[in-house]
């Protein structure tokens, strides 16, 4: 122990390498990316995977097919604004949409815990049916497994999806160029705080409902408008901050965001204030960012605003050169700060 007069406070360094998987490895932040690189990319590396996009795009007999999969483990199964079923459909539909693809079909795999009420399962499946209908995509194949009581959390769902890419654009981080406008499709943070409020039984005045929604309609509308879409990314775990960092890193560019242009609903802001969360890192399930050339920005915003799910779309920032991989935020007071990727999960602060 050093002497009392040697005053040198420094925050202890969080661990960067763990030999066991933590919950934080699933948080969408830096720890998750380390796990992906160390375990999965190391084992599976190939050109389609290495693109690092939400869906792989494959040439199949002359057609460009987008292919993606995602698993859903949310607790509770039902929450204001959605359920594990709506997430399972919309999440995969949105991953296809982010490749600029029209969803063609989904698969659904269920891992069910012994003891789950059949009525609950029926409600989950009904919500999937309704979500699939809204997104205009059939669920064409599936699988069911049951595990011992205590070895699942009610039900886990995996969905995979294929979509058709019907345009010549290369929608991927590598297409992003300095000067591109960054368009955000609406207010952020609703899904994460809706789940948080229910899971932790936090008594807020009114229920915050998830923003869970299919995004294929606005995206396909955007592409049909002729706007030169460079990249799309839906904001899920890790929030807006992680999505922008992933794209800045993947494209080797900088991104500057005007914090005042990023909308956060009043009740979501209040909940974040109470818990010490930054809405920039809170999960969404019905929001995305689009990167388009400056010349197309106004038209793109106008097209997106025609769709209810993206009726509040607006330009929130710009792609810059030089600052490779760096996301900067102009604060409301006019200063600039770095918006880094989260290390693991956001944890409620002491004070």
């Amino acid at each position, binding site marked *: 122990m050093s002497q009392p007069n040697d005053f040198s*406070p420094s925050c202890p360094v969080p661990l960067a390498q763990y030999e066991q998987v933590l919950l934080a490895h699933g948080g969408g932040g830096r720890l998750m990316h380390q796990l992906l690189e160390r375990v999965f990319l190391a084992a599976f590396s190939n050109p389609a995977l290495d693109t690092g996009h939400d869906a792989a795009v494959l040439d199949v007999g002359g057609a460009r097919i987008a292919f993606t999969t995602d698993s859903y483990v949310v607790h509770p199964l039902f929450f204001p604004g959605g359920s594990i079923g709506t997430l399972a459909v919309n999440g995969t539909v949105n991953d296809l949409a982010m490749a600029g693809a029209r969803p063609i079909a989904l698969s659904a795999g269920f891992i069910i815990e012994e003891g789950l009420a059949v009525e609950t399962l029926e409600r989950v499946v009904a919500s999937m049916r309704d979500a699939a209908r809204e997104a205009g995509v059939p669920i064409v194949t599936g699988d069911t497994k049951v595990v011992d009581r205590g070895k699942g959390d009610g039900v886990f769902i995996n969905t995979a999806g294929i979509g058709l890419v019907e345009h010549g654009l290369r929608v991927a981080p590598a297409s992003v160029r300095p000067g591109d406008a960054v368009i955000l499709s609406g207010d952020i943070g609703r899904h994460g705080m809706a789940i948080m409020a229910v899971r932790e039984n936090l008594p807020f005045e009114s229920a915050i409902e998830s923003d869970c929604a299919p995004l294929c309609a606005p995206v396909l509308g955007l592409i049909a408008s002729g706007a030169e879409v460079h990249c799309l990314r839906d904001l899920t775990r890790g929030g807006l901050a992680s999505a922008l960092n992933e794209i800045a890193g993947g494209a080797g560019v900088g991104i500057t965001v005007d914090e005042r242009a990023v909308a956060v609903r009043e009740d979501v802001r*209040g909940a974040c204030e109470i818990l010490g969360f930054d809405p920039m890192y809170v999960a969404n399930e019905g929001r995305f960012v689009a990167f388009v050339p400056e010349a197309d920005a106004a038209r793109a915003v106008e097209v997106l605003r025609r769709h209810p799910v993206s009726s509040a779309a607006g330009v929130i920032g710009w792609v810059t050169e030089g600052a490779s991989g760096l996301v900067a935020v102009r604060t409301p007071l006019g200063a600039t700060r770095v918006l880094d990727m989260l290390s693991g999960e956001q944890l409620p602060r002491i004070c």
Partner: protein
Amino acid sequence: MKFVDEYRDSAAAEKLLGAIRGLVTRPWTIMEVCGGQTHAILKYGIDELLPAGVTLLHGPGCPVCVTPLEKIDRAVALASRPDVIFCSFGDMLRVPGTDRDLLSVKAAGGDVRIVYSPLDALRIAAENPARQVVFFAVGFETTAPGNAMAVYQAKRADIRNFTVLVSHVLVPPALEAVLGSPGCRVQGFLAAGHVCAVMGYTEYLPIAARYHVPIVVTGFEPLDILQGIHLCLKQLEQGRAEVENQYSRVVSEQGNRPAQALVAEVFQVVNRAWRGIGEIPRSGLGLTESFAAFDAERRFDLSAVGPRPEPAECIAGLVLQGLQKPPECEAFGGRCTPEHPLGATMVSPEGACAAYYRHRRIAAGQGSVR
């Protein structure tokens, strides 16, 4: 958002910044005491907007940073016991002990739970009479009343399976430790508003007088902080060293008397080790004899987990005091990068080393030389 947006107004901030620019005639160094203030300063970029020569140093008021290694190790040891439910505020879970953090204990099967109030931990104890529930009671004077209340209620309700691992610290002795440091550059303080909401601010009067430093009790919103800086600089320019209260909408001179009385009943002032600083006499709180039955360090045998030496990591401490610049560190940019940090200042996106590292890269990309 009412009562928040008013204190983030950019026009009012610009006005205050103008007043600060008009006031300053020479360089000054001010320390904001509380980690919450540091957070707001970096989030809004307030340090960047101040006139050149006005330096903000980040103070010791972050419970995560100052809780000693030994206590983290003891928390890890307790949380690893199969008979224990270990409850903590969320951000303590990531603080590394000698070998691991509480997140790792959780991954290995330990029952570690995040709570939002110590009373939640007490409720868990009442609901699980066959298990031992330990709450990690850390923080400054701000969290002390809530933690005292949990222990007080446990005694009243005779909940015997509830204990607390106490590592409470106090602000005034830390300010004196800062001021007594040989390399101290601090000329004025922004005192922690929420600590003073509990304690009032009379205990700062002798410190301001003895060391001739202005101390301004300051809030946490951007306008609070700018106003606190303005008041502090005004005192410095005029050669005054008084205790002033910027945060009067929350803080009164005498503070919250019932909260103080509860803290005084449950806790007593003890010597306390601070991470990165060492032991400071009479700088912490421990349970009084009449509540000793709720002390986890007495209930459980933790004798195997003694004081540990701090790892010699990097020059973060010197960087934080402004005594050295990041590029002067041998490891900077080589062995130490944001992806493989050796010290805290390279970890946080807003840390001095990480910021330097990134801005240097920006400068290089634009072809300019710094």
